[in-house]
């Protein structure tokens, strides 16, 4: 179900970057409602932390990024590591690269690395996606 020709992809092929609209508190609240994760850390902050975006909100952004490129049905594994908090106002950029390409008896695969950074190029999330093309 991939949206590209596997033969044209090589290790190092970049996935077109995506610049998100500025993160807002409203978006965090919408995501809380959608996900069911109403942890106060996200919707209002705690005595220790100001409100920050859910890690899974960034994961969903990265998920849609790879979905737009490869098709949701191509993704077999997806692992997101949350590196630093993203607060309202953050300008997030999503970038990805093909790190590995191989074929075995079960099919054709790509492993991609995806990173989300803010306007200061601080890494907010890094992810690894395994695609079966």
């Amino acid at each position, binding site marked *: 179900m991939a949206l590209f020709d596997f033969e044209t992809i090589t290790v190092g092929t970049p996935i077109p970057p995506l610049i998100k609209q500025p993160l807002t508190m409203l978006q965090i609240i919408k995501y809380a409602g959608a*996900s069911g994760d109403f942890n106060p850390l996200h919707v209002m902050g705690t005595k220790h932390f100001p409100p920050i975006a859910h890690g899974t909100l960034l994961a969903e952004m990265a998920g*849609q990024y*790879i*979905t*737009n490129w490869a098709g*949701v*049905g191509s993704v077999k594994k997806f692992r997101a590591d949350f590196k630093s908090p993203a607060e309202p106002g953050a300008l997030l950029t999503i970038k990805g690269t093909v790190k590995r390409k191989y074929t075995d008896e079960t099919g054709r695969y790509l492993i991609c690395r995806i990173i989300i950074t803010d306007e200061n190029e601080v890494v907010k999330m890094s992810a690894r996606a395994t695609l079966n093309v």
Partner: protein
Amino acid sequence: MLDQSYEGREFTPFQCEVDRCKIKELSLAAGEHNPVFTDRQLAREQGYKDTPAPLTFATVMLFWGYPVIWDRLTEMGFDLSKMLHTREDYEYIDPIYPGDRLEGRGGVESVTVNSLAQIAVFKCTFYREEKPVLICRLTMMVAEGV
């Protein structure tokens, strides 16, 4: 301190019916508008049976399907005001579609407590008609020094 006796403990299975509106809501909340998540005809043209669930839909099913997870986290020693979500891990076996009736089965896969960190990994497998379709793992960590 996290209670290490929770390692291996399984939680009560829960039922979840996949809602078309929730797929749209999750997609829009993340700020994207890929029509595969809302346009049935387009989805079928791309080879899906219906509008497929986005890649992190397990989060929706887990928190809305098993809201007492917060009680479990607190019981095992997490202070929710100092809990960090550090990793989310998904394995996709088969696409998930609106109307799917799934059962989530899982629990605490591991609890690690040492001088460096306190970390718990939760695993949940979603079944459709007794066949696994999605596996997710959440890694939560106590924020030290707070």
